[in-house]
């Protein structure tokens, strides 16, 4: 789909801050509120904008720290459907946060979130490894998130500039 420059700009702004007031957004791209709303509607309907989500630092919430694991999965592709069928079987599990088909040493990269290591381990051994097409899995637990989707966690946001300068 070919988008106009303004449409791309609206997406870029929302990617950084999906909660920006529509009046502000409209001014930033020099459009009226109505025009901006129409563009948003179009982008949502065509699923270019799939969803508006919130980036949360769960480490800060007691009892919700959780664990994230990235699992390299080797699979046997099936005639006719390739990797799609096994990918689908995997991504339907709600604990699976993302699934990517990869080039290189393994085939699918699966990101799992769970409440504890044992919960993730249980999922891998009981659900993932037991799938017919899965040949092997390698599980990597994330120890600390420094940066996620372009945003640095715990970034010192202070402005070092002097308060007034010519």
């Amino acid at each position, binding site marked *: 789909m070919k988008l106009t420059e303004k449409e791309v700009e609206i997406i870029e702004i929302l990617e950084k801050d999906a909660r*920006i007031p529509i009046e*502000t957004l409209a*001014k*930033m791209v020099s459009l009226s509120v109505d025009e901006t709303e129409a563009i948003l509607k179009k982008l949502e309907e065509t699923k270019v904008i799939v969803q508006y989500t919130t980036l949360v630092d769960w480490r800060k919430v007691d009892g919700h720290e959780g664990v994230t694991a990235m699992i390299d999965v080797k699979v046997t592709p099936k005639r006719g459907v390739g990797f799609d069928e096994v990918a689908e079987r995997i991504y339907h599990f709600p604990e699976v946060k993302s699934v990517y088909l990869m080039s290189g040493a393994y085939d699918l990269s699966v990101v799992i979130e769970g409440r504890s290591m044992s919960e993730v381990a249980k999922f891998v051994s009981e659900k993932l490894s037991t799938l017919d097409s899965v040949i092997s899995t390698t599980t990597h637990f994330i120890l600390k998130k420094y940066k996620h989707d372009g945003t640095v966690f715990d970034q010192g946001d202070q*402005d070092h*500039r*002097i*308060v*007034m300068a*010519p």
Partner: protein
Amino acid sequence: MMQQTKKSYLSETVARLKPSGIRRFFDLASSMEGVVSLGVGEPDFVTSWSIREACILSLEQGYTSYTANAGLLELRQEIAAYLARKFHVKYDPETEILVTVGASQAIDLALRATVNPGDEVIVVEPSFVAYSPLVTLAGGVPISVGTNGDDHFKLRPEQIERVITERTKALIVCSPNNPTGTVLHKEELEAIAQIVKKHDLLVISDEIYAELTYDGPYISFAAVDGMRERTILISGFSKGFAMTGWRLGFAAAPAEILQAMLKIHQYAIMCAPTMAQYAAIEALRNGEQDVEYMKKSYHRRRNYFVQSLNEIGLSCHMPGGAFYAFPSIRATGMTSEQFAEKLLLEEKVAVVPGSVFGASGEGYIRCSYASSMEQLQEAIKRMKRFLDRL
């Protein structure tokens, strides 16, 4: 017994220089908590990491000695390539480019290398606060030419012609302009060029905001037909590359003038800081994407901020470049200083009174929109509240 008055050690020229009008507001704003500052004349971005990293590497490799007086040849070659690529002006990196300590030093050198005692230098106002004092320090006489807010502060040839005398030596122009954000377009530059040629003037063109124009390509004064031979092009890394603290600028000019500037530079400064020069090489080689990103961000903030100012009742032209809005506050009946002080004290929003930038800036305030969207929205909210109360 005779009373002995202590003699002053100060130069009379310096003693007579007026302190910058920004100072009082700076002290006031600095003493307050919770101020939203629109008074900062620099980017809100930190220098991009690849540039900072290149500087760190140069330090690790031990590049800590002087460079050539004119700056690293490698950097001058990059500057020459950059000027040719972006602004279609050609300079010889060996003899026509000088790396300076910020664009400010380049302006100082340009004046000191060309002004004879009593020479008049035309300063287009509202303008950056340093031009006139630097002309005075170089022994010249600054002649102010005020541009008109109702004309979006465009410089018109007849305004220059009106003040030209046989002592007129040079004209300082700055486009995009600090504080008005006004950009001079091709026809406007050409009209000025005609006058410049007719009266055989030298042009000191401060192009420090050249990277930040939003409504069309930038045209360097040196690129205007017949102007290269009489123009000292001054720019640097502070604004476009968000490198204010690195203090790195440059001048490009015909060899005769440039070499005279270099003569002063080698006695006064030796060379610009070496580590900053290595960072600048990286900026020119790989920084273009970051500049574009920042420019886009200012562009959106400009659109938001200027429209919002107009909505809350501060009439403001759409500035074509830099990161300043320069709205009129004449409708309030206050002077720009009164307005700025009252706004600061009552709503804790810091802006710079337009009068600081010359008499023709009276009735206006300078607001920098190089602040986060959150800060800008908060500033608009407070300014609206302030205006509603008046």
